[in-house]
């Protein structure tokens, strides 16, 4: 069974530029998550989708971050414009459902460096 796929693996941009990340969850997983992991810290949830609807985006800086999951499968996370403090690893995860039996599986992440 294929795992969670993410691309690109690495991205370097200048501040104020825009960037987009892509995620394809495990087949059949209804719930998709985006996390931000700053160096030395645990991942922090940015947004959670159930199929193509947003369940929780309370930690998403909506002035610059946006995410969509239009067909309930793959998802994109965008940052526009990027700031220096956005340098982090962006992790995508998926689970069969939310609620009980919601073991999450993570992709390899995208390492973003903002100069």
């Amino acid at each position, binding site marked *: 069974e294929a795992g969670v796929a993410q691309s690109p693996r690495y991205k370097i941009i200048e501040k104020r530029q825009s960037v987009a990340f892509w995620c394809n969850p495990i087949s059949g997983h209804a719930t998709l998550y985006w996390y931000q992991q700053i160096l030395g810290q645990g991942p922090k949830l940015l947004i959670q989708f159930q199929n193509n609807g947003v369940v929780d985006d309370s930690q998403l800086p909506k002035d610059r971050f946006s995410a969509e999951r239009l067909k309930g499968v793959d998802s994109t996370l965008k940052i526009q414009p990027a700031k220096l403090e956005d340098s982090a690893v962006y*992790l995508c995860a998926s689970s069969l459902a939310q609620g009980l039996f919601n*073991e999450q599986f993570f992709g390899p992440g995208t390492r973003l460096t903002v100069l």
Partner: protein
Amino acid sequence: GIQVEQSPPDLILQEGANSTLRCNFSDSVNNLQWFHQNPWGQLINLFYIPSGTKQNGRLSATTVATERYSLLYISSSQTTDSGVYFCAAHPNDYKLSFGAGTTVTVRA
């Protein structure tokens, strides 16, 4: 939100040694996961363990939900066990909250 605390923050082991990592959480949880983050940044699922004890090879985990803690045991450690171990708790609102991690270094 729920607070997840891991200890110790750093652990240095000689190859072959055993160790115990601890995870305390501040509220009741529906579930708990342990992950190993390898040097390339990939989070590898180790255990999905709301309560009780599970074993997988040289690793085992125990969660005592009523006392709000979980333990991860590493036996006969190997250099490939090096990395950061994260505990993450699912409280009643189902958000997964991570601890700060325990960095394990196994020396040959």
